[in-house]
């Protein structure tokens, strides 16, 4: 059986990739996708933990399910906002979103 730490490592790597994407990418949509990667890492964690730790209760699975749902809602809202920006500026690069500055 694949041990827990492998799942966790995969999750961590996925999370790191997502985080890197968030920090490195300049395209808002790409950032959104990177966030999805991070959330998936979370899901891997949750499910793995459930399987290895608390298999007799549904907590982990339920948690993961909620994360799916919320992530979907979040993405929908995010895309809508990005589209609104795109309509005005013809760009989704975060450098161009710079009207508000101190």
């Amino acid at each position, binding site marked *: 059986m694949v041990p827990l730490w492998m799942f966790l490592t995969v999750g961590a790597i996925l999370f790191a990739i997502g985080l890197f994407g968030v920090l490195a990418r300049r395209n808002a949509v790409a950032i959104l996708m990177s966030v999805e990667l991070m959330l998936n890492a979370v899901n891997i964690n949750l499910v793995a933990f459930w399987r290895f*730790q608390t298999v007799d209760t549904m907590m982990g699975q339920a948690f993961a399910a909620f994360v799916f749902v919320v992530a979907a809602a979040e993405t929908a809202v995010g895309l809508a906002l990005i589209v609104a920006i795109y309509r005005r500026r013809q760009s989704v690069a975060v450098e161009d979103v710079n009207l508000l500055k101190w």
Partner: protein
Amino acid sequence: MDFQTINWEASLLAILPELLMTVLAVVILALDLTWPGSRRREIGIISGIVLFSIAVIGLVFSAPPQGELAGQLMFGGMIRHDMFSQIFRTMIIIGAALTCLLSVDVERLGRRGHYYALIVIATIGACFMASASDLVMAFIALETTSITLYMLAGYLREDERSAEAGVKYFLYGAVMSAVTLYGLSLLYGFSGQTNIYLLAAGLTSQSIQGLPVLIALIMVLVGFGFKISAVPFHFWTPDVYEGAPTPVTTFVSVASKAASFALLMRFFMAAFPAYDELWVLILAGAATVTMTLGNLLALWQRNIKRLLAYSSIAQAGYILIGVVAISANAGSGMAAAVFYLFMYTLTNVVAFGVVILASRVTGNELVADFAGLSRRSPGLALAMTVALLSLGGIPPAAGFFGKFFLFTAAVDSGFIWLALVGVINSIIALYYYLMVIKVMYVDRSASEGQPIPVSGSYRWALGLATLGVILLGIVVTPVYAWALQAGQALLLN
């Protein structure tokens, strides 16, 4: 803890306000569809009044259980209905109600029913944040609030600044919640528990201790730090505060912040008692940096909303002092933070309310546009003055007591240096608050002959909130006693 014996009656009563708000949201959407455009302004007024009523109903009918039942978890451990959640729920709903009343005359916002529906939904999420006692519940509540707030921040799609604020808020928020969530997932894994109140026991019983937990703790802290706009996760605050429609900014600065603090306090008190020396120190450092940076940056702001944004960053720093002072006598540190948030809610509503009204007339949001405000509208100027004094901690406004309680708690728990930092900071802050007051009273402007129209709902909302700020600064005992009960409720595991 026994979750199986659910007293349904009590459980439903416990979330009665949230249920009512859900109904309200639906009703609002229905009204939005059926009422003609000319009447839709009333939707805002209705939402405001109903929200007030819900707050009162919540106080009267869903009082938290006392005695043996105190601190009992409900709905399978999802929420805990105690004094802590009650006081936060009250302040959040009041903040939302005032926000509704202050939105009605705002162009492209005040006459749209679904705007109010979104506010109400965000309020529901915020209320649940305050009472959530399970990681899942906390996450859902957090996201309910956040997602609606992203939408609200970008609500004025045709306004570039609003759209930009929405996107920024969203991108930062999404990343941060992903990080938090990762932390939560680790916590769940380490402890085998999702219930906050069982986490601590789970953490100590498992073999995993120390660094991994610390990493999880910090990841969770990142998310909370973002929501309460603590440095270094504050960078979104000025942009979103400035860009979002002002009523939304009000709501973000008030309800969302209060709810996030509630969650943070409950979470850290319950989940990490074994690590309290550590996170207290981290939070103390964060408080110091947050206060100082917030205040120093606020000094340079010309835009009133940005100024209030930085001020709200600094205020978060003050409130953290209360959180840090966990060892203060009988939960008085938490109580101080709770009290501070209570008064801060009212105060900020007043401040932003005046900004809404003034910028509608001047068409601008610069501090300089407040020139001559005391001649154009003495009442507004006075309300703003009271609000700024309260933020600055000057009596008789409530902020004086707020700060006093915080510093007292800090000294009590041995953080004299933190109290001194807070004290020095409150003086720096006073500088820019006084500058605004000065502009209103001293500076002249060409248009000072024209009065600023203040419609009924604004008059009521601002009047009540201002009165509240002053009353809270004089008749302090009831709310403080309440806050103390809330603080003590947190100590009860």
